[in-house]
């Protein structure tokens, strides 16, 4: 931008105040995260939620399905820190059990869409030509359908279960990954060192892994975090709509169906269950934001 007039450029006349931080995947170190406030907070929150999920898979204060662990509609108290629901089930236990569902579904969705999306993006970006055009069109069209709507459409066809939610979400998130991977690949494809590698006879695949991947990786990592947060939200949303894990199995979304139903009698149910979802999503979002800053410091200032 050498045409920026002087009036805008006079600030630090020709000075380099410090070396620009380099970023990239190698910048993601324990040290970096600990020193970045948001990343640290995010990592902590995420870790707590993960811990709850892990613990919840083999131990909860009460059995999440057992009725009458206490009187129905008990507000939060020592014996039942999150209260009890209409059947006297302990809400905290149900939340913990639900955590497992949410986290697994989201992780599965992210993993699946990461794999498929990367493959599509790589194919489109690297091969170019007709393949690229066709794939890109498909990606554009799929991205034109609002995500949740598409997921709902798919869940319609599969039996409502945690697995089908995961599959549906894979079908929604894949395209975003594909687009990101493709643009990274395209950006790198014509760089001199890639051309040079080709000239030296490196096979396509090795070029991809050695030269293209390092550029793509940081963006992917951030997107993984973002998608994971969305996964938790979407799984809960689909559960709330009754199309996910079916009762009496607890999932965060279906807990909120009950919450809405018994709003007058047990307001602590929706408040508590929803708050947990929020904290989980917030944690992952913070972590994602922090990672983005660490990996690409030049984007700093875009958000606080």
């Amino acid at each position: 931008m050498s045409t920026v007039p002087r009036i805008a450029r006079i600030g630090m006349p020709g000075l380099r105040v410090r070396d620009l931080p380099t970023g990239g995947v190698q910048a993601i170190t324990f040290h970096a995260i600990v020193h970045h406030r948001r990343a640290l907070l995010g990592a902590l929150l995420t870790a707590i939620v993960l811990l709850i999920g892990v613990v919840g898979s083999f131990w909860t204060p009460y059995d999440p399905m057992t009725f009458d662990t206490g009187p129905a509609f008990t507000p939060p108290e020592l014996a039942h820190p999150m209260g009890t629901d209409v059947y006297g089930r302990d809400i905290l236990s149900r939340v913990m059990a639900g955590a497992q569902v949410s986290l697994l579904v989201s992780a599965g969705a992210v993993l699946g869409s990461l794999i498929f999306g990367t493959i599509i993006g790589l194919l489109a970006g690297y091969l170019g030509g007709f393949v690229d055009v066709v794939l890109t069109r498909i990606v554009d069209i799929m991205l034109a359908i609002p995500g949740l709507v598409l997921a709902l459409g798919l869940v319609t066809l599969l039996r409502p279960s945690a697995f089908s939610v995961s599959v549906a979400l894979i079908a929604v998130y894949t395209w975003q990954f594909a687009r990101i991977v493709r643009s990274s690949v395209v950006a790198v494809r014509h760089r001199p060192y890639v051309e040079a590698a080709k000239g030296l006879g490196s096979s396509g695949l090795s070029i991809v892994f050695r030269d293209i991947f390092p550029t793509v990786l940081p963006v992917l990592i951030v997107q993984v975090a973002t998608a994971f947060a969305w996964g938790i939200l979407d799984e809960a949303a689909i559960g709330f709509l009754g199309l996910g894990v079916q009762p009496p199995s607890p999932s965060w979304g279906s807990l909120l169906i009950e919450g809405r139903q018994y709003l007058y009698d047990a307001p602590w149910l929706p408040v508590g269950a929803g708050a947990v979802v929020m904290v989980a999503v917030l944690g992952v979002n913070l972590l994602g934001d922090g990672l983005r800053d660490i990996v690409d410091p030049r984007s700093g200032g875009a958000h606080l």
Partner: protein
Amino acid sequence: MTETTPLIRVEGLTVEFPVRGSTVRAVDDVSFEVSRGEIVGLVGESASGKSTLGLSLLRMVPPPGEVRAHRMEFDGRDLSALTESQLRQIRGSEISLIVQDALATMNPVTTVLEQITQVVRDHEGVRSRRVLRERAVQALRDVQLPDVEMNLGRFPHELSGGMQQRVAIAQGLILGPKLIIADEPTTALDVTVQAEILALLKQIRDSGTSIVFVTHDLATVAEICDRVLVMYAGRIVESGTVAEVFAEPQHPYTQGLLASLLPLGGEPPERLEAIPGQPPRPDAWPSGCRFHPRCVLWKSKGEPHICRDEDPRPDESQPHWAACHFALEGAGS
């Protein structure tokens, strides 16, 4: 305030920026005057401080820069004592700024008419659309913009580069300022358009407005400036009328700059003479005379110590002076 009071009187002007705990000076202890109705050229390479100097006259050096001066007077008034509100009133109406990229200075979503009249509205409180339009038309005619009526309704990006610059000048001129600071106004334009704009600036000068013409291009200085100040590393190193300085440059830097101009006619030179080296950065100014590491004269004299140890302190009361130890001795080349 008699007619002979200089329009601008600056003494000991310094502009500092805090950097990494210490401070750095973009402009270092500069003094000069600008009379009414003259064009003063301010010449230098990048990082010489010339643009910052121009901005400081408007008190618009961006933070965290700080401006300090023993004396900073405009039209007899002390600029450093004015409040922000008073400064706002001066800007645009008594002192105007024109920069190189005219398009970048214009609001992309408002028409030419709206842009030009905004200045009138904000300074004079005029509301009448008819009057505003007449003033705009007159201002655009004054800068010789073709097709005034049509262009009033256009948006900035629809105009050519030369027209954009004319509109920008019109905006600066419409309130009849006493001083225009022009920072490389023609550098981005075609040669023919350049000539027209320069002619326009001369006319503006003739009608009584002073111009501080900031540039790196000595050729344009020769064309329209009355006096010239050569800046290097935050200091003025030579000052005089254009005729004097071009005919007998006293400072080796000025000599170098002039030598790198291609002469019209005659034999093409065997080599383009450029001044060796790069201009120094404000945080790393050479000791003594700041130009000495690049000074051909210094080398040819066997690198005398005085250039490294002492900052030249010229007699600035002379009409034509230069900040060089050997210029003071009267030995130019």
